């Protein structure tokens, strides 16, 4: 009983677990254009996000992804109307066609709009939108900075650079605002290049000052202490990492594209991961650095990651058995069918909403006003 309560103690899950889950769902979505299934995937992601997100700023950005997804659907359908949606026999409405000059042959503006082409646009857009929502879900659930921190120690330097770069943007926005206000005080009415200069110069000076101070502070605190690696060692680990990552890219691409030879999918992905891991371990061995409270991979992470993988596997499997159901026909208009197998598969993705510990909340409150004597 105690282990069970310990399992559900509030904590932040390993960010990679959320990413595996989300990518699993996204992979599943990429294999189908069935609107019912896609809608279920979106619903699953939304449900889990609402159940398990913290109150951090990145978690609140999920809404933006939903808007972006809606925009994608609208654009896809809109394009079908504007650039001719005449394929198929069921013409819904005929818009006046705008005649184009000869050099634009092959492009049609408006004209007949068929139900088939609209549906095609809708299904396609919905698929892309679902994948966007999946990525948005991962971003909302996983702290992006913790994800960087969880990178192999060989990539530590890169991770630090990214973290530092990310923190620059809010600072820049702040300085621009401050300098603009100051400029108004001076009554500076210059326009165009002069005005730009009056803002850019102080802001850049500020930014340069800060980066020098940061560099000296990092140096004083031991950043980049010498490791003991020879040139050959570095070359070997570097080559392994690059080759491995190329393998991973090839594997992922072929996993998502069902038409390519299968040997380039799973096997290439696994081989790539292995090679890259060897490279990372080699590179990591020379780094005399430790990590404070690393996110650990525990049972809850396994559950989360596997639920995402399960969804992808079920959809990949059913796409072989019953492709018609996953990709509704566009030539003969019919109400898309929803089969039980893929539906249950997608619903497995819901498990993290109940089977993960809740996030830690209430620690991003606004600073207390300082009290003075």
């Amino acid at each position: 009983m105690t282990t069970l309560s310990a399992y559900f103690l509030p904590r932040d899950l390993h960010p990679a677990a959320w990413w595996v889950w989300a990518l699993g769902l996204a992979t599943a979505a990429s294999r189908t254009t069935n609107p019912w299934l896609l809608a279920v995937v979106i619903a699953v992601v939304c449900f889990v996000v609402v159940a398990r997100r913290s109150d951090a700023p990145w978690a609140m950005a999920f809404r933006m992804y939903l808007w972006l997804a809606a925009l994608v659907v609208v654009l896809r359908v809109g394009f079908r109307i504007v650039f001719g949606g005449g394929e198929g026999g069921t013409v819904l409405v005929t818009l006046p066609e705008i005649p184009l000059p000869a050099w634009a042959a092959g492009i049609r503006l408006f004209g007949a709009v068929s139900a088939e082409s609209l549906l095609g646009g809708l299904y396609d857009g919905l698929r892309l939108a679902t994948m966007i929502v999946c990525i948005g879900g991962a971003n909302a659930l996983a702290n992006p900075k913790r994800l960087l921190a969880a990178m192999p120690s060989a990539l530590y330097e890169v991770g630090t650079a990214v973290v530092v770069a990310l923190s620059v943007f809010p600072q820049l926005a702040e300085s621009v605002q401050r300098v603009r206000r100051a400029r108004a005080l001076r009554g500076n009415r210059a326009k165009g290049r002069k005005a730009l200069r009056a803002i850019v110069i102080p802001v850049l000076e500020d930014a340069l000052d800060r980066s020098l101070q940061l560099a000296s502070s990092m140096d004083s605190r031991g950043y980049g202490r010498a490791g003991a690696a020879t040139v050959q060692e570095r070359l070997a680990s570097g080559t392994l990492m690059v080759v491995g990552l190329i393998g991973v890219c090839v594997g992922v691409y072929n996993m998502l594209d069902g038409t390519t030879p299968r040997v380039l999918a799973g096997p290439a992905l696994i081989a790539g991961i292995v090679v890259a891991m060897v490279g990372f371990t080699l590179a990591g061995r020379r780094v005399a650095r430790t990590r404070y409270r690393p996110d650990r991979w525990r049972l809850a992470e396994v559950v989360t990651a596997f639920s995402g993988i399960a969804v992808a596997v079920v959809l990949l499997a059913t796409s072989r058995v019953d492709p018609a159901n996953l990709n509704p026909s566009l030539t003969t208009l019919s109400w898309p069918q929803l089969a039980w197998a893929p539906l249950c598969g997608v619903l497995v993705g819901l498990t993290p909403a109940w089977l993960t510990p809740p996030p830690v909340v209430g620690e991003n409150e606004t600073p207390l006003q300082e009290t003075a004597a």
Partner: protein
Amino acid sequence: MITLDSVSFSYAGAAAPSLRDVSLSFEEGELVLVVGRTGSGKSTLLGTLNGLVPHFTGGHLSGEVRVAGVSTRHRPPRELANLVGVVGQDPLAGFVTDTVEEELAYGMEQLGVAPAVMRRRVEDTLDLLGIADLRRRPLRALSGGQQQRVAIASVLTTHPEVLVLDEPTSALDPTAAEEVLATLARLVHDLGKTIVVAEHRMERVVPFADRIAYVVGDGSVEVGEPAEILRRTPIAPPLVELGRLAGWDPLPLSVRDARRHPPPRFDALPTAPAPKRVDKPSNRGGGGGGGGLTARGVVVRYGARVAVRGVDLALSSGEVTALMGRNGSGKSSLLWALQGSGPRQGGSVDAAGADPRDLSRADARRRVGLVPQSASDLLYLESVAAECVAGDEDAGAATGTCRALLEDLTPGVDDALHPRDLSEGQKLALVLAVQLAAAPAVMLLDEPTRGLDYTGKEVLARMVSRLATDGHAVVVATHDVEFVATVADRVVVMAEGEIVSDGPTADVLTASPAFAPQVAKVLGPPWLTVAQVRDALTSEVSP
């Protein structure tokens, strides 16, 4: 613990060396206060202790610096990170991570400290500095004092032998500075680390400093007992000035010392200082007619947060008003609203018959000028001369107005210098000159004393008095009690967006111990400044 053996250092291309043949040694567990004027080489001296000078800054260093027996000659700062912890002026600029806990662990991660040890040390250090409740907070959301305490904590976790702090409070407001200095006092007493600190709020550190290293400015450094060194430094807190004036021996280093052993010479003091000179404003050169400003029921709010709650304020020409109050009490919001550039949701402002908010920015600044907190935001050209010319253009003033004003405020600023190379005081004077070129009748200064040393404040005080005698109405928002005692005719104290007290300087300052200047604490009200005491003593001698 630290030895410098005939160390000389000069920056690349510099005419004179910053340090010349410096030999000294600091003992284990000692707190050394480094004093000296801005730009005298304090930071350079501190930088040599962990190798930032010359490994990071460039330049040529001769001689030998040893910390705990390790020479910095062939070791860059990162290799000395386990021996020396360095805390800079602006804590936010030095943060690498984004939450308190991660920042504390950062240094240890670099040194490869074992995870279990790290966890323990983070907890210990959070408690030591009293910041355990902040552990998961984002660093940017902390107040200045909290940030600086986190910065100190983050170097302490690596258990360095030596802690070096370079003006840790100069970028902070006084409340935050108090917080940091109290922390420092605690570290000295509880940990007994060797601490080297440069600090311009000397009066706060002097009572527990073991020795003082005085960086003279010509490259030499004098080290000695506080009472002995302070006897001859040109920069000194008011208490020390008072002690020198009275020929006090030994020199009092704290208000407590001074009150316990009053010198006989003060028995001759009259009960009150001579009334302040009442030379009515001549109104020469001043602003466009009438002068002064009347504000009624000013309301400033940011969303649900009310910054200024219906403030009435009348400013008359020739008067210096000090605006005081803790951070966030609405001082800046009020100043920006009076100038017309900032938001104002209610009330009226009348500056010479018009509301500056309804005027164009160029017309508004002819009535009310404002020097903002980060004054250098107004400067963007490559030389002082170019800034002055642009200042004349912006103000629509005759050519040379701005330059003449600058010469008036601080004589002898080199035209060809880049504004960034000016001292803080000179930079402030340049911005003030640019703003004065529009000849506003009312001049508002937001926190001008921040980052100024005693000398800089003296210069600023002269500039402010000058403005008042020229017929300007001047408002200075500041936390600096000593500065207010010197320049202000009237003090307005704000809290939570309201004015809680408004009256003549002597009355308001001496009404509460928190606002009383050092001289008042020693001699009792109505004495406020060393200058008053000096005047009274000289007139006693020669009536």
